[in-house]
């Protein structure tokens, strides 16, 4: 014991050095931008380019239409994340337990691609398919005499439309992140559970469920953050009419209409960071906890 600690000491003294690139990375890509945002969120600019510290931007960011937007962003992301998480788990389970073949491989490969498919191309793909002059819209109209918007309640240019489009990349993302956990469920557990006379639901309730839960919650947090920070798709489909914070930041920072609102933009960004950081930490924590079981 004693000799071991003696021989280890020099290693411990220098081991932190290996983390330098990591800390450098975190400093440049996370801490520094966050610090700059926090700084400018509390500045107001006055006449002649002078500026001073003030909480005015934060007050604006957390009241009126901006607060509505933050609240709406949160609700919308939560709903999208929940739907995508449940559907994603079901799909991933079907893939994980299937006996191989083309289909499961196709699903997992396309999940990897689709999870990274978003932004403008995705929005225009949906416009081309189910927009007012979309291919599918006209097909359904001509062949079935049905209007997607009026008869089937599918309005692409609304909040539910945007959420529908989000599912297109959120479900594949869920499949991608939950599949390793599902594959980590050992067949022996199921055999043992069956051998002891447990029902299917008892196996899920007492064995697989608790083992999967941390990973599921972590994935849910990840999906929430992805949906929360999505911007280009919503912008393209609603032209700024959707009340979500990323679009409010956009109109504060760029455009031809609102001048001198950069600091309000920073305050809005700060409010988003405050929402997302705890969830990111939760994701990390849950990942660590579930890896105890599923490896």
């Amino acid at each position, binding site marked *: 014991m004693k000799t071991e600690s003696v021989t280890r000491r020099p290693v411990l003294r220098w081991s932190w050095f290996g983390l330098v690139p990591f*800390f*450098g990375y*975190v*400093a*440049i890509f996370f*801490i*520094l931008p966050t*610090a700059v945002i926090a700084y400018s969120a509390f500045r107001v*600019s006055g*006449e*002649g*380019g002078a500026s001073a510290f003030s909480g005015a931007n934060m007050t604006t960011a957390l009241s*009126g*239409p901006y607060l*509505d*937007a933050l609240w709406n962003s949160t609700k919308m992301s939560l709903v999208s994340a929940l739907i995508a998480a449940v559907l994603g788990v079901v799909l991933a389970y079907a893939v994980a337990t299937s006996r191989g073949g083309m289909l499961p491989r196709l699903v997992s490969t396309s999940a990897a691609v689709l999870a990274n498919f978003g932004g403008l191309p995705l929005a225009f793909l949906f*416009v*081309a398919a189910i*927009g*007012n*002059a*979309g291919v599918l819209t006209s097909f359904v109209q001509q062949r079935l005499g049905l209007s997607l*918007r*009026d008869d089937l309640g599918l*309005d692409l*240019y*609304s*909040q539910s439309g945007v959420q529908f489009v989000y599912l297109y990349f959120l479900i594949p993302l869920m499949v991608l992140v939950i599949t390793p956990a599902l594959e980590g469920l050992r067949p022996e557990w199921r055999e043992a559970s069956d051998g002891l006379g447990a029902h299917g639901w008892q196996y899920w309730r007492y064995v697989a469920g608790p083992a999967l839960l941390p990973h599921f919650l972590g994935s849910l947090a990840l999906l929430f953050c992805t949906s929360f920070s999505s911007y280009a798709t919503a*912008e*393209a*489909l*609603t*032209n*700024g*009419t*959707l*009340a979500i914070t990323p*679009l*409010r930041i*956009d*109109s504060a*920072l*760029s*455009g*031809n*209409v*609102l*001048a*001198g609102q950069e600091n309000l933009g920073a305050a809005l960004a700060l409010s988003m960071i405050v929402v997302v950081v705890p969830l990111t930490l939760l994701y990390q924590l849950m990942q660590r906890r579930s890896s105890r079981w599923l490896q």
Partner: protein
Amino acid sequence: MALLAGTLILGGTACTKKADASASPAATATSAADLGGMDALVAAAKAEGSLNLIALPRDWAGYGDLLDNFGAKYGITVTVDNPEASSADAVNAIKSLEGQKRAPDAVDVGTAFAINGAKEGLYAPYRVATWDDIPESQKSPDGTWFADYGGYISIGCDAAKVTVCPASFADLAKPEYKGKVALTGDPLKSNSALMAVWSAALANGGSLDDIAPGIDYFGELKASGNYVPVKATAATIQSGETPIVVDWDYLNAAKTKDLAAAGVNWTVAVSSDATIGSYYAQAISATAPHPAAARLWQEYLYSDEGQNGYLAGYARPARLPAMEASGTVDASLAGNLPKVDVKAEFPTDAEATAAKNTLTQTWASAVK
């Protein structure tokens, strides 16, 4: 550690800001006469040899030809950074590129950014030779900014996809235009979209002091499904997604030719129940790397040739009334402009600020 890295990087960017801005006499000249006349200005600009501009799309207000002709006439290399950028981007570029060779020399921005930038001291005062032709209300008395061209809110329409083209905001609410009416952007970002909402307000009992009826009007258009919240572009018009577009008349009219090539019969009507007019403004960067070329560019834009160049892009140049009086306007180009039957209103900056505040507060909740 992180703090140290942060300080180093902040310090680094601060250092690169140090200006090597030329101490040329052009940098402080407030008129061509200050430099000894036009010939001296031309010589100084030729010596600089290049001009940096930003946010000027070639298909916007005739800029494509204006840029080419200016470059050819004076042998100056003109660079346009980020042609699709916004006014905010242009003003930010002046600030963030200060002291660098590639910083913008002059900008073409919305009135709010002209006034705001002048307050921040970003622009150099300058009076072009034709200064007196620019109406008093369309220029800053100290010469820090001056209107260059403008237009009126109009309704563009694909006559092949729409049986009868709408000519007023009252028309746009009709059931036959369901899923057809679009704006060119988010009214909180796009000036033309903002003015479309404001014109709708005027047509529905609002005023320059009251944009709310326009917001309600678009709320109803969205609820009835007439308003399609897709940012209208030539592509969305061609695909049939946005067959009716409310936009500046010069932008709608300029689309006619390109769309005709794609087989779209695009017609333009200045809305008959109300319309708002607005002008963009020129301003010279106070820290322009090519101060003489920036000033020569202004002289060119406000010359008869430059102003007729805007007209060729369907924009109404600031000197249009004066040029009509003196007969220097190109009559065939002026004849191409969409007809205006209503009296257009021009909001002041204070009214615009108030309207934007109302819009920021209520747009997203009214139109959903």
